[in-house]
C-alpha cells in the first residue's frame, strides 16, 4: 500500500510540475483534474487495505467535486468569456521548470528537519505536499492571467489536502466535507469574478503595455 501512496504523491508533484510547463489554459485545467483524480484515490490507500465506507465517501466526494465539478466550472468560465488560450508567464517556461525543480528540492530539504512523530523518515507525504504547495504559489506568482491565479490557488489547496491526508490518517468526515464545500463555493465565486476581470490583473504603470480589461457584460 505504501507503494501506491508514494506513487500517488510522486504523481501529484509531477502534475504540478507539468502545469508549470504547460502553455495553454485548457491543458492546465486538464492536468489539474488529473491531479485531483489521483489525490481523490489516496484515502483508499491510507489504511493498508482496510477500506471503510467513510474512505469511499470521502474519495468519491473529492473526486466528484475536484476532478469533476471544479474543472467543469473553470471550463465553463473560460468558454463563457472566450479568452485567449495561451498563458502569459512573467518568466519563461524553461526558467519556470528549472525553478520548480529547485523548489521541489527545497521542499525536501525543509522536510528533512521537519520530522513528524509517528511517521517513518522515508514517508513521502510531507515533502510532496510542501512541494505542491510551493509550486502552487509559484504558479500564482509567475502567471498573470486571472484563471491561472485560480488554478494556483486550487493547486495550493491540493497541497494542503495532501498534507492533511499524510499528517492525520483520520480526519473527521464533517470537517473534510466542510473544506470541500468551501473550495466549491470559492471556485464558484471566483468563476463569477472571473467573468468581470476577464483577462488579467492590471499591470504596473506602464502606459504602453497596459491592457485595459474588457467588460463582458
Amino acid at each position: 500500500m505504501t507503494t501506491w501512496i508514494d506513487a500517488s504523491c510522486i504523481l501529484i508533484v509531477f502534475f504540478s510540475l507539468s502545469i508549470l510547463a504547460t502553455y495553454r489554459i485548457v491543458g492546465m485545467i486538464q492536468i489539474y483534474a488529473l491531479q485531483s483524480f489521483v489525490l481523490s484515490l489516496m484515502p483508499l490507500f491510507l489504511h493498508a487495505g482496510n477500506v471503510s465506507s467513510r474512505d469511499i465517501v470521502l474519495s468519491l466526494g473529492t473526486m466528484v467535486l475536484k476532478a469533476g465539478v471544479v474543472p467543469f466550472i473553470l471550463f465553463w468560465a473560460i468558454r463563457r468569456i472566450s479568452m485567449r488560450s495561451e498563458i502569459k508567464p512573467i518568466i519563461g517556461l524553461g526558467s519556470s521548470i528549472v525553478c520548480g525543480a529547485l523548489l521541489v528540492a527545497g521542499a525536501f530539504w525543509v522536510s528533512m528537519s521537519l520530522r513528524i512523530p509517528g511517521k517513518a523518515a522515508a514517508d513521502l507525504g510531507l515533502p510532496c505536499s510542501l512541494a505542491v504547495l510551493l509550486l502552487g504559489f509559484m504558479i500564482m506568482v509567475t502567471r498573470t492571467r486571472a484563471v491561472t491565479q485560480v488554478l494556483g490557488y486550487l493547486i495550493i489547496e491540493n497541497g494542503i489536502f495532501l498534507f492533511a491526508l499524510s499528517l492525520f490518517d483520520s480526519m473527521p468526515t464533517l470537517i473534510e466535507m466542510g473544506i470541500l464545500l468551501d473550495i466549491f463555493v470559492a471556485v464558484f465565486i471566483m468563476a463569477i469574478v472571473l467573468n468581470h476581470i476577464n483577462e488579467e490583473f492590471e499591470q504596473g504603470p506602464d502606459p504602453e503595455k497596459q491592457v485595459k480589461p474588457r467588460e463582458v457584460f
Partner: protein
Amino acid sequence: MITTILIHWLLTLLFAPFFIGVITKVKAVIAGKIGPSLFQSYYDLARLSQKRSVYSSGVTWVFRLAPMIVLAAVLMVSLMIPIGIFKAPVQFAGDILVLVYLFALVRFFMIAGSLDTGFSMEGMGASREAFFSCLTEVTLFMNLLALGLLAHSISLSEMIGANYPVSWNLVGPSMLLIVASLFIVLLAENCRIPIDDPDTHLELTMIHEVMLLEHSGVDLAFMMYASAIKFLIFSSILVPIIIPVKSLDPFINLAIYLGGMTGLAVLVGCVETSMARLRLDRVRHLLLISFALAFFGLIVTWWRA
C-alpha cells in the same frame, strides 16, 4: 574475451534493425496501412551497402571518416550493454562515463561532418542537435546518478541488472520517475516524434535526418546502422529496469527481453502516431521536464536512502 566481444557485436548487428522495423510497422498499422515488412530496415541496409557513395564537392576527411567513427563508437558502447541473456563483455566501475563520452564523440563527428558540407540546412540541424543534446546528456547523467545510488555502483551492468524485483517495491516511486525521464531521453536521442521526425527528409524542423542529408551509399548505411544500434542500446538500458523479472531458465529470460524490447518499440510507435511533432521551441520544455523528472527522481532516491 575476443570471441565474446565478437558474438556480442554479431548479436547487436543482428537485432538492431529489427526494432526499427517494428516501429515502422506499428505506425503503419495504426494508420490503417499494411506497411513495409518487419525486415524492411535490413533490406534498406543491404541495398545501400551495394551502392556507391557520392560526395559533395569540398568535403574533407572529417565528412568522409565520420560514418566509420560513428559506427565504431556506437559498437563500442554496445559492448557495455547486456543483451538479453548475454552479459556485457566489458564491465568496470565507471563504464557509464565511457558510454556517455563515446556518445559525445558520435555527436561531435555527426555535427562536424554535417558542417563540413557547408550548407545552411545542415548547420541548422547541427545547431539544434548540439543544443538538445546538452539537455539530454545532463538528464541522462542525472538518471545514471540515481540508478547508481540505488545499485551503489557506477558500472552500467550492475545498475540495470541489480535485483530490481525487490527494489521496485522499495524504490518504486523514484524508479517511476527515472523510467519516465529515460523514456523521454530515449525519444530525444533517437530522434523520435515529439522531438524530431525520422521520416521527413526535407523540412526546416528536423534535426537528425538533416545531418545525414549528404551521406549516401555505404556511408549512409553505416549511419543508419549506427542509429539503429543506438536505439537498441537505449532500449536495452530501459527494458531491464522496467521488467526486472528474472527466471532461472535462460530461454524465458531471452523471451522476456525480446518481448520487452518489442513492447518498447511498439510503445514508441504508438507515441509517434498519437502525438504531433512539437514546435521547435517547445522541445526544450519537454526536455526540461525530463530533466526535472530525473532531478526529482534523484531527490526521492536520496530521501529513501
